[in-house]
């Protein structure tokens, strides 16, 4: 095995005199504690490595051992429902061996070798098999079956397949006869984290990832297999939004990466997800979710690796034919880790101290999302949604600016909305989605007939509202003509009714597509009536005082997904309120009459 001897130590970066062959990105082990590390630079006679663990106390002379293999993750059943660190080491096992704090030099297997999984064969011996084909499956959790695939690059005849039996990760599950000999397969495989896994074909995302969040599903849809970014200053609601999507989106498998963020946020997921139910399957959300936590105070090199660990695991489930959604919070902390390592290497910095390869690394990451046909021919996708934490909330900084070039769904979070506790604080005029056309087609086939028109209308009202708001600032609202005040009223009602949605409201945190359609319809109705009424001389501001307007603005939290019939009642009420308006017999707006 190749060896090297450390002579230079600077935080997590080491240089060592090498003997024998090392490769770029090779996984290596440092010192007696066998700290995990990776080769990041090769010179004649020396190597540079980044260490994924605390290097306190490390001395020159420490020996680095090569592994001959690239940094890789272990793939197999046993990941869902668990939390791992940035190198895929199970934090539960680390706690069992080290206690409450994470220390350097832990050696625990990434996946549990002893656990037995019930295997169900799905092919017959003697069958001809191709890469990516499903040999059989194990029930990883009640929500997700882990499909055992023929590895990439291997094809031939299935000589032997395990029967319906309990298997450990390393037990043989199948044997293939290939052109070069026999090939044995077990439940456990490995894959280098920096190499994308292959698929047969990539397609443009053609259906939305339904999130149950009205402002996303209706205005800024995320395509299944797409990539999206959510930038926003601190406290604008990025993490809550990510977690909300991870809870309620209609993906089969969720990979959630806490990349350089808070420990409590990860603990929160661990305590909350097992209690929540997937509205579609009725299964516990934790059963489809795996977590990677490299919190802000954990070693920075492992933070850099964590997003690759996560996306490789995402691809693994994608290749089984699943729709996977990956969330990374926050990509900025990953970029900072990159910058810190780069600075220690004394590389020439480009913008804001970031290395010149920041944009290309970002592009490589976002490009691993995709709507694909797997090697075995099934449709599957990997959607990647990341948060961005721009310094000072300024979107012109490098990580936001470069992310923008590669993502097609951009959800800009706005400080002012967040401060007024208007959530989600997505700014409708700064956000965009390039998945609208394809999504519109999908809605058309799925009952949301006028989705595209409604969306257009909402956006144009919001646009107009923004312009009028500028006028109001100069002349005051009362000086505007009725037709313009009508726009303001419609916008206000719409914003409150549709776009506001609290992640903490038991009723409103998830809004089914059916409920969304009903709500859109009702608000549409209201706007139509309002326009008529104003044409007939009603003062638009009076509309805000109607009790039914108040009810509309509380629709989300007052009517549950299961009570859609109450919408008919409300439609009726809206009609009634406006006809009494027309008849000049306005009901008292509220118990309290405004003093004149």
């Amino acid at each position: 095995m190749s060896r090297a001897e450390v002579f230079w130590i600077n935080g997590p970066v080491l240089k060592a005199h090498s003997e024998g062959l090392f490769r770029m990105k090779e996984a290596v082990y440092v010192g007696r504690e066998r700290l995990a590390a990776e080769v990041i630079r090769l010179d004649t006679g020396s190597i540079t490595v980044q260490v994924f663990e605390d290097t306190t106390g490390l001395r020159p002379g420490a020996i680095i051992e090569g592994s001959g293999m690239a940094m890789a993750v272990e793939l197999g059943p046993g990941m869902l429902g668990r939390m791992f660190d940035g190198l895929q080491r199970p934090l539960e096992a680390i706690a069992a061996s080290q206690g409450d704090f994470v220390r350097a030099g832990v050696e625990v297997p990434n996946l549990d070798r002893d656990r037995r999984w019930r295997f169900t064969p799905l092919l017959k011996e003697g069958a001809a098999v191709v890469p990516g084909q499903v040999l059989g499956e194990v029930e990883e959790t009640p929500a997700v079956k882990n499909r055992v695939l023929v590895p990439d690059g291997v094809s031939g005849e299935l000589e032997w397949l395990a029967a319906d039996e309990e298997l450990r990760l390393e037990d043989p599950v199948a044997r293939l006869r290939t052109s070069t000999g026999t090939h044995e397969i077990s439940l456990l495989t490995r894959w280098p984290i920096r190499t994308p896994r292959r698929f047969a074909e990539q397609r443009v995302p053609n259906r939305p990832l339904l999130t149950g969040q009205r402002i996303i599903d209706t205005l800024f849809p995320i395509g299944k297999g797409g990539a999206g970014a959510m930038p926003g200053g601190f406290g604008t609601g990025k993490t809550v939004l990510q977690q909300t999507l991870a809870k309620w989106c209609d993906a089969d498998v969720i990979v959630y990466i806490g990349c350089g963020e808070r420990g409590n946020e990860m603990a929160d997921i661990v305590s909350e997800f097992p209690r929540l139910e997937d509205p579609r399957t009725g299964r516990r959300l934790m059963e489809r979710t795996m977590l990677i936590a490299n919190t802000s105070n954990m070693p920075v090199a492992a933070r850099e690796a964590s997003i690759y660990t996560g996306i490789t695991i995402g691809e693994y489930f994608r290749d089984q034919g699943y729709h996977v959604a990956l969330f990374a919070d926050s990509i900025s902390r990953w970029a900072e880790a990159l910058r810190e390592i780069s600075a220690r290497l004394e590389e020439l910095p480009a913008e804001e101290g970031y290395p010149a390869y920041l944009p290309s690394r970002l592009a490589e990451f976002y490009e691993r999302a995709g709507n694909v046909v797997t090697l075995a021919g099934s449709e599957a996708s990997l959607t990647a949604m990341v948060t961005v934490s721009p310094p000072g909330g300024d979107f012109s900084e490098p990580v936001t600016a470069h992310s923008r070039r590669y993502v097609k769904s951009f959800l800009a979070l706005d400080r002012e909305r967040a401060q007024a506790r208007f959530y989600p604080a997505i700014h409708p005029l700064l956000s965009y989605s390039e998945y609208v056309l394809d999504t519109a087609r999908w809605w058309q086939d799925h009952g949301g007939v006028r989705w595209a028109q409604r969306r257009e209308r909402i956006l144009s009202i919001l646009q107009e509202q923004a312009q009028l708001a500028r006028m109001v600032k100069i002349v005051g609202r009362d000086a505007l003509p009725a037709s313009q005040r009508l726009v303001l009223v419609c916008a206000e009602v719409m914003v409150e009714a549709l776009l506001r949605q609290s992640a903490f409201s038991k009723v409103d945190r998830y809004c089914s597509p059916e409920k969304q359609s009903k709500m859109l319809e009702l608000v549409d109705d209201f706007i139509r009536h309002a326009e008529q009424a104003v044409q007939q001389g009603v003062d638009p501001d009076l509309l805000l005082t109607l009790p039914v307007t108040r009810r509309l603005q509380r629709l989300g939290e007052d009517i549950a997904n299961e009570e859609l019939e109450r919408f008919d009642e409300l439609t009726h009420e809206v009609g009634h309120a406006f006809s009494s308006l027309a008849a000049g017999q306005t009901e008292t707006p509220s118990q309290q009459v405004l003093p004149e």
Partner: protein
Amino acid sequence: MMDPRQHILHRGLTSIRGPLIFMRNAEGVGLYDRVEVLPSEQDDPRLGRVVSISGTTAVIDVFQGTEGLSLTGSRLRLLPEPILLSVGPGMLGRVYNGVGEAIDGGPSIVAEQRMRIDGEAINPMRREVPSEFIETGISCIDAMNSLVRGQKLPIFSGSGLSHDRLAADLARFARLRASPDLKFAVVFAAIGVTFDTAERFRSEMDEHGAMERIALFLNLASDPSAERLLTPRVALTAAEYLAYHEGRHVLVILTDMTNYCEALREVSSSHGEVPSRKGYPGYMYSDLATIYERAGRIMGKPGSITQVPILSMPSDDITHPIPDLSGYITEGQIVLDRELERRSVFPPIKLLPCLSRLMNQGIGKGMTHADHPAFAQQLYSSYALARQLRLLSSVVGEEGLSKADRRLLHFGNRMDREFIHQEDQRRSLEETFDIGWTLLAELPDESLIRLSDAQIAEHVTPRRDDTAVTLQD
């Protein structure tokens, strides 16, 4: 345990630059090893640590100043261990310097163990989600930005604002609602602040008989600036001992983190590192995280660490890297406002940019009041509107506003005077709720979208009659 005297004294200093020493013949030193620097035979040793090694040369950060050192006369004692703090019973009621040595003339701490001041990351699997509501007696915090045990909630202030007074109130008032807190302790770390600030806090606590529950760590403005890098860590190490070994609920006040960040910048620049924004090092986020993330609760451990770091925003700019990076790490922030301070509002809390991210875990049914979340949301949304209207009315005049808007404006003014302003009077949560509901009663139903009909009927309608009178049109 290692006897430091066993270790050879090194000469071998090759250069001294600012707070750094370069040495040769550094065989066998490890990264972040502790170093004692002896300016000359009779001087007290100064604390340093190895920060990078290249072959047999090493670079050492000296935390207690390099004044008076010389290349030939000064010597180094290299210790094969990181910087540790001796902790043990009797740490409370004492005053320490910025590196954790008792300076109050009392006996030195009998070391039960020595803990690494850098701390270690809590395994996220072992973290207990903080959820126990702390009643601070301050309306803007209790009702609107609730603090829970194990949270890190900084105060973003400005120079000359009354953050110290607020911190002292917090330390005196804070308690759980359910039970009186016998296991409550305060760790106060003065980081580069003046003697007055530290002394005022101490005497304030003394006056209220709270001194025996407090440990004070003092790095004063006159102390070496590099030492500021150690002070918060030393204080937090003591806090961890108090929390996880003695089972106490520790409130840690770190003031002023801006001085800490400046020391970090100073040391970074002397290393010749490429700076990031405003000259602060690119790793400042990660560095601050190793301090702030030491707040929390651990499963199965009785104690907790709640952090209230105080920082002054340079030129009151919340986008400055120090508040910005802090805000990205902490679980919310309480922001102070110069304008309110000028109008003698105390505490001068600028409500809109304040936030408590753990609030939702600690409030609501069974914890505070079932309607607490809606109450806070409504107050916030109405107050945000009122603030906008205040801006607007300064342009178009109050006459340019509609009647409904004028009511909101009026509501906003009363919020400042009656809700935010409370002097040093501790308010129970019920008193705070009462004031808030009464102010909301000034607004018509259609402005109370965040409240359900039932909430309006229960809290608002009954309070309406008397407020209608006070409305001036």
